[in-house]
């Protein structure tokens, strides 16, 4: 037990520190629409929604990959399950026709159930085998959504989907006592997304410090040792997996509502899973604040910074159509890839590395290669 003392102390003060980061981010996020408004519309509010959604998705994935140490390459599949179940529960071409709130709540158990279904038989698998199972599941879900036209409308997409509603008197902008969110008024959406993000962050922080959270990390550090301490690894992993699936499905439901459409099944392909994974790793595996920063950097750079730079270039007539090199759009993959490589090169533990119990976590990464000693 003596050996644990310094680390638990360090984790406590670390938690204090990250709470501070969280609060600062929250203050910045709350202030952003005001800044945006004061400066006459920077167009930052709308793209921020994507950052919030990916942050929620990343936080879900962080439970599996960050806390529990499992490589998960199919988180988009659970998002798609959330998107499509939200759509089927709400759209007026289906019999259920629920409202926004009950449907969004239902995505959570549906996602969790899907997580159990996949995780149950496969979570005993070793790391990279599990990775390909999740990857394969992602492909299967996409194909099933595409092929089962009678239920999912195939590639047509399901729309329109109901926006959130709030009980608000007419004086406050409601009609008949209800305020309905509008697609082109991003501020209410912004704050709603932010609220959900905060809820997910708080839930994650509590999970991180809870018994199950400690069990996750113990499984990550040492599967066998946890078993001997009475933590059943497969069951523990399953809870992590289902929780992540529930969060991803929830993010999906929210997203579908904000788009008022499911889009196509291919909008939830492998690239989304990879992006979520990159957010978790670039931010700092296992670190909640890291995931937030990761989402901000990864989506912010792509959706905001690059967009602004490119439209500035277009205005300065720096672009041309003559050759493949002339259009900035043709450089996007390269810039994105280069950013990933450089970030990993110079911050291999992520932008905000998680502090693991040092005796085990760091010792492993400091051996020649992070690899178990075969003997």
């Amino acid at each position: 037990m003596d050996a644990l003392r310094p680390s638990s102390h360090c984790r406590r003060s670390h938690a204090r520190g990250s709470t501070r980061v969280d609060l600062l981010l929250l203050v910045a996020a709350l202030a952003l629409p005001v800044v945006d408004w004061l400066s006459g519309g920077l167009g930052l509010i709308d793209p921020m929604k994507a950052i919030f959604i990916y942050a929620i998705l990343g936080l879900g994935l962080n439970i599996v990959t960050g806390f529990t140490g499992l490589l998960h390459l199919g988180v988009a599949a659970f998002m798609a399950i959330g998107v499509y179940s939200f759509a089927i529960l709400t759209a007026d071409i289906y019999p259920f026709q629920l409202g926004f709130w009950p449907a969004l709540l239902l995505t959570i158990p549906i996602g969790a159930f899907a997580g159990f279904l996949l995780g149950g038989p496969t979570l005993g698998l070793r790391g990279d085998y599990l990775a390909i199972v999740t990857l394969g599941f992602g492909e299967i879900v996409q194909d099933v959504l595409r092929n089962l036209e009678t239920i999912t409308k195939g590639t047509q997409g399901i729309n329109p989907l109901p926006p959130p509603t709030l009980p608000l008197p007419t004086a406050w902008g409601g009609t008949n006592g209800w305020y309905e969110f509008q697609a082109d008024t991003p501020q209410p959406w912004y704050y709603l997304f932010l609220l959900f993000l905060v809820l997910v962050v708080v839930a994650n922080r509590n999970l991180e410090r809870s018994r199950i959270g400690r069990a996750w990390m113990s499984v990550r550090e040492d599967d066998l040792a946890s078993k001997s301490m009475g933590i059943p690894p497969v069951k523990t992993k399953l809870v992590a997996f289902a929780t992540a699936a529930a969060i991803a499905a929830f993010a999906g439901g929210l997203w579908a509502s904000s788009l008022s459409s499911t889009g196509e099944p291919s909008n939830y392909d492998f690239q989304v899973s990879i992006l979520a994974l990159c957010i978790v790793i670039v931010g700092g595996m296992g670190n909640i604040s890291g995931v937030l920063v990761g989402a901000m950097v990864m989506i912010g750079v792509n959706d905001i910074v690059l967009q602004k730079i490119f439209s500035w270039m277009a205005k300065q007539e720096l672009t041309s159509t003559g050759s493949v090199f002339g259009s900035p759009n043709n450089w996007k993959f390269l810039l994105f890839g280069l950013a990933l490589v450089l970030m990993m090169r110079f911050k291999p533990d992520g932008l905000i590395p998680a502090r693991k119990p040092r005796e085990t976590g760091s010792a492993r990464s400091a051996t020649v290669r992070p690899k178990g000693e075969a003997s």
Partner: protein
Amino acid sequence: MSPMATPLLAVRDLRAGYGAIDVLHGISIEVAKGEIVSLIGANGAGKTSTLMCISRVLRIRGGSISFQGENITDLLPDTVVRRGLAQVPEGRKIFPRLTVGENLEMGAYIRSDAEGIEADRARVFTLFPVLKERLSQLGGTLSGGEQQMLAIGRALMSRPTMLMMDEPSMGIAPILVARIFEAVKELRSEGMTILLVEQNARAALKLADRGYVLETGHVVMTDSGAELLKSSRVREAYLGD
């Protein structure tokens, strides 16, 4: 103990660690040619880290290492072996899915003198005849003691000037432990310099010319093997008396 004029291996003020934690806080060790020097200490005292630093596997944060009068602090692990400093690592670390023969071949990786290699192989087989019987068996199928013999044999295949051995007796049946210490003596009689890390302090100090006692990353005592065996501090802490 008299100061050595030109020690074969000289470690000065060595510092190293993992992540944010320092495990070696300035270790200084010297080994003269032909000596057996033993490092003893509790679990986590830094014995294995010291050897890994000398083999240049673990990153060094301060201090220097010289071997045969040359500074080897900035070398890569494979070059250290080429300079004649081999290690039998803790837990054997044989290659489980290579045959015994292939394991030995890997030991001679830096060499290309076919005849010399053959001669050294024969020497290993005289030292540990059982390896010859197991020649085409996979390393992972050997018993713990046999694996230890293989690990020692493998290290010898590079024809080192000095051998570092990390816990050769760990997890091995007593009868085989005796055989291994026997082999260490034999090697010494052939003029091999040995730096021995052992948990079995009594056996190690009996064998050693000199010893160092490590505690939490510091050298706390150093003396001849016989003197250390007599020391009350050592007796209490490491010999269970």
